[in-house]
């Protein structure tokens, strides 16, 4: 079978419309836009899916209600314990050492968490002194079991707004 056989197989792939390329094309003079008026102009007459023909649309007729926490939530950088232990060589884990290891930025809210898969059981392979914003219960237990300490600090003042979504 030659490449041509394959390329001549119908696939449902449609030919591109070529507008304004001559009478015979059927999309010649007005290019499928009819004649004159707003609809025939660039950018004309696209009023969006919630437009109801000029009648006050449903979403404006109904009262506003409800609350969404999205603007107020505190967002943490979630750092798996095993990765932190890998990347930070000393026994002090705080924002400075995490930043130096490229795992955090000075103004982000950091939470130490367990890992996935093989690392789901959080384990500390050495004693470390941890000072970060939040530590998950499992990781806290693991660090203390390995002889380390855990201190949770206040969130950065603008933590809620500056921490990135991940």
């Amino acid at each position, binding site marked *: *079978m030659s490449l041509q056989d394959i390329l001549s197989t*119908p696939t449902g792939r449609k030919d591109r419309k070529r507008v304004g390329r001559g009478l015979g094309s059927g999309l010649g003079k007005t290019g499928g836009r009819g004649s004159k008026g707003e609809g025939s102009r660039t950018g004309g007459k696209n009023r969006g899916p919630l437009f109801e023909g000029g009648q006050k649309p449903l979403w404006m007729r109904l009262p506003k209600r409800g609350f969404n926490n999205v603007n107020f939530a505190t967002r943490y950088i979630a750092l798996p314990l095993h990765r932190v232990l890998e990347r930070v060589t000393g026994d002090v884990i705080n924002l400075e050492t995490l930043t130096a290891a490229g795992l955090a930025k000075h103004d982000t809210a950091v939470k130490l968490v367990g890992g996935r898969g093989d690392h789901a059981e959080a384990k500390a392979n050495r004693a470390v002194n941890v000072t970060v914003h939040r530590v998950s219960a499992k990781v806290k237990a693991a660090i203390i079991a390995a002889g380390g300490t855990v201190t949770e600090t206040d969130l950065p003042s603008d933590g809620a707004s500056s921490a990135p979504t991940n």
Partner: protein
Amino acid sequence: MATVTIYNTEGAATGSVDLDPAKLDREVRKALLKEAYIASQDAQRQGTHKTKKRSEVAGGGKKPWRQKGSGRARQGSTRSPQWGGGGHAKTVEPRDYNWDIPAGQKRLATRSALRLRLEEGALVAVDGLDAAVGTEPRTRVVAKFLTKLGLGGKGTLLVSEGHQGNLHLSTRNLAKVDVLERRNLNAGAVLRRPHLIFTKGALDALVASL
């Protein structure tokens, strides 16, 4: 059951491996292969093309002649599209032509393409070719082997297991011969060349993976 003949570097058949085409794919999906080939060809495009619109052509700041009274058509710039030396009305901009077919279809297309070559009898294997150029790249070794198989000058894709730098170097000066690692196999690369040659290692790994 189709067989894949294994040749040595002298082009003599030394063995064969039975390979069930159904294990690759239950049929040769021509429509899917076409999509995969088009996607692969599109991905090859560099998209480095550019023409200038009127604002990008140098000059043209001064109004060529006054608006009224000259008897000539009003003109605002010597770089308007209708002027010789003017900008293009519709420009060609640099762009990325790459688009993805769904990952699952991509994998399926690769296997379908292998089935196609297998059915055609265009899928063979070679034992020791990578070792023959293992220490030093030698184009003549590969060229001689291909000629013995009757593939001299024909479009051929060589599939290696793992990166074989010397195999690349030994085919670099052969027109229409590509080398690809097995893990990078894709339908586009297979379809581009009508003949497909696996190294022994790559064939073994392929059979093991089915």
